[in-house]
C-alpha cells in the first residue's frame, strides 16, 4: 500500500514498521489535540448543574449526572421545538436542493438551450460573492417587504436551491457520457424520463453527498435564522443555543449540554454515513 513516497525502508521490515508506528503515534497525538474540545464538551455536559466555583473544576467532572441536559431543556418552553425547527428546515432545504439543483445541473450539463453558458457563468460568479453582500437586502426583503419574520418559509427559501449545489451536480453530470442520453432520445424517451430513469440512478452518490452537505450546513447555520426569527418558538437550535449562552454564561455544564444537543445529531449522522461525508469533501474540490 505504501506509496513510492515512503519506500525508503522497504528492504528492512523492522525499521519500516517502527517508522510507521512512530508516524502513527504522532498522528494520534495530533488527533487527540483536535478532538479534545469535543471530548471536553461531551464529558462536561454530564457535569452538575451548578455555578462551579471557578477554582474547583477539573479537566473532567467528578460526578456524572443528566441534570445539565434537564437544565438546558427547562430553560425555554421551546427547547424541543428548536430541534424540531432545525430538523424541518434542514429537511425541506435538502429535498428542494436535491430536486431542483440536480435538475438545473442536468440542464446545464446535457441540454443545449439558449443562454445556457451565460446563466451558468452567472451562477459561478454568484458563488464568489461573500454572503455579507446579500444578507442586508435579503433581510429587508423578508422582514420589511414580505413580512415573513418567524416563518418556516423565511428560514427555508433563501437556501432552497444553492448555486454551489447546481455547480456540484453539473460537474458530476458532465462526466456521464452524452451517448447514453442520445441513444435514449433516439428510443423516444422524453428529457424527464431520461433524467428519472437514466441520470438519477447513476448519480446516487453525488445526490447523497449533496443531501448530507446541505443538511449539515443548514442545521449548523446561525446567521440567517438569527436574523429572521424573533420569537423563541421559531428559533432553530443554533439560535436557541446562542440565546442560552448569553443567558447562562456562567454555567459550564448546562452550556456544554446545550452544545452537545446541537452537535450530537450531526455526530450521529456522521458516524452513520461516514463514507459520504469523506467523499463529499473531495467531490466538490477536485475536478474530474
Amino acid at each position, binding site marked *: 500500500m505504501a506509496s513510492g513516497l515512503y519506500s525508503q525502508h522497504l528492504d528492512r521490515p523492522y525499521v519500516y514498521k517502527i517508522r510507521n508506528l512512530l508516524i502513527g503515534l504522532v498522528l494520534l497525538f495530533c488527533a487527540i489535540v483536535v478532538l479534545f474540545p469535543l471530548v471536553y464538551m461531551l464529558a462536561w455536559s454530564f457535569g452538575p448543574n451548578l455555578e462551579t466555583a471557578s477554582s474547583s473544576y477539573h479537566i473532567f467532572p467528578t460526578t456524572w449526572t443528566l441534570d445539565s441536559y434537564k437544565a438546558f431543556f427547562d430553560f425555554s418552553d421551546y427547547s424541543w421545538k428548536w430541534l424540531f425547527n432545525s430538523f424541518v428546515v434542514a429537511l425541506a432545504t435538502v429535498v428542494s436542493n436535491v430536486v431542483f439543483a440536480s435538475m438545473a445541473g442536468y440542464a446545464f450539463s446535457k441540454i443545449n438551450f439558449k443562454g445556457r453558458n451565460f446563466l451558468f457563468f452567472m451562477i459561478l460568479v454568484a458563488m464568489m460573492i461573500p454572503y455579507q453582500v446579500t444578507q442586508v437586502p435579503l433581510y429587508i426583503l423578508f422582514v420589511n417587504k414580505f413580512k415573513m419574520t418567524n416563518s418556516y418559509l423565511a428560514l427555508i427559501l433563501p437556501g432552497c436551491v444553492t*448555486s454551489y449545489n447546481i455547480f456540484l451536480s453539473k460537474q458530476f453530470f458532465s462526466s456521464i457520457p452524452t451517448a447514453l442520453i442520445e441513444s435514449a432520445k433516439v428510443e423516444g424517451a422524453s428529457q424527464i424520463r431520461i433524467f428519472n430513469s437514466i441520470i438519477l440512478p447513476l448519480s446516487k452518490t453525488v445526490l447523497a453527498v449533496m443531501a448530507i452537505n446541505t443538511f449539515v450546513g443548514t442545521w449548523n447555520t446561525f446567521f440567517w435564522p438569527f436574523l429572521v426569527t424573533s420569537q423563541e418558538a421559531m428559533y432553530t437550535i443554533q439560535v436557541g443555543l446562542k440565546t442560552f449562552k448569553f443567558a447562562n454564561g456562567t454555567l459550564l455544564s448546562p452550556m456544554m449540554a446545550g452544545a452537545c444537543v446541537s452537535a450530537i445529531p450531526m455526530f450521529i449522522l456522521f458516524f452513520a454515513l461516514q463514507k459520504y461525508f469523506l467523499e463529499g469533501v473531495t467531490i466538490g474540490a477536485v475536478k474530474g
Partner: protein
Amino acid sequence: MAAKTAKKSIPKKPFRFTVDDLNGYLFIGVAIIVFAFFTIYPVVSAVTTSFENYKPFGSEWVGFKNYLDTFKKDLFWKSLKNTAIYTVVTVPCSLFIAFVVAVMIMPFKKKTQSLFKSMYYIPAVASGVAMSVVWLWIYDSSPSGLFNQVLTLFHIPTQNWLASSKTAMLSLIIMALLSGHGSSIIIYIAALLGIDNTYFEAAEIDGATFMQKVRYIVFPLCKPTTLFLLITGIINSFQVFMNAYMMTGGGPDNNTTMIGLLIFNNAFKNGKYGLACAQAILLAVVIAGLTAIQFKVAGDDVEY
C-alpha cells in the same frame, strides 16, 4: 430532407425556440427563479442601497457618502487590519498543518487512512455556535481554565485570554489552528494519491531522500490543490464572523473586530443598512482582488 431545411433555416431564424430550449428552461426554471430572487436581486439591491441612506419608506440617494464615511472611519481600517492579520496567520499555517498531516497519513493502509481522516474531520461537523461555546470555557480566565492550567504546568502566569488586548486575537488564531483541518487534509490526501508512482521510482533511482521527494515531486504536483485551498481559505477567512461574535464580541477595544462583524454591527445593531452594504461591497472587491492576484502569482500552469 427535413434536417437539411432545418440546417438552412438556422441563420435566417436565430431565435427559433427549440425543444431543447423548452426542456432546458423547464429544468432550470425553479432554480433560476430562486437564483433571481435570492441572489441576483439582493446583489443589485446591495449596490443601490450602498448609495442610499436607507429608510423603510423612501430612502434618499446620498451618492458615495457611505463609501467616503467608511474610508474615514478608523474602525473600518482597524477591522480590515484585524481580518488581514487573522488571515495571514491562520490560512498558511492551516495549509501547512493539513499538508504535513496528509503526507504523514500516506504510508498507512486504506483502513487506517480512513480512520485518521474521520478523526480529523469530526470537528468540522459540529456547529460554529457549539464550538464557540466550548472554546469559551477552554479560554476561561480563571486559573482553572483549561489553557491556564496548561500554562501553570509550564510555570507561566495565567492569562486573561479573551479579554486582554494582548491575547484576544492570538486566542482566536489558536482556536482556528487547533480546530479541524479535516477537509483540507482529505483534499490533500486525494491529491497525494493521484501522484503517479513512477515519479517516485525515478527519483529513487537517482537516490533522492524522503525530503527531496517531498520538495521536488509532491510539492509541485500538489500546487493546484494548494492554490485551491489557499483561495477558498482566504475567501472564507475574510468572511469570518462567528468566533468574533460569539467569543469576544469584537473586543477588547475592537481588537478582534473583523470585517464580517463590523458589517453585522452596522446593519443589525446600528440600523445603518446603506453603510453596511457599502462595506460588504468593499469586502467583495477586496476578496475578488486577492483572488485575482493569487491566480496571477500562481502562474499559468494552474488550471481550473
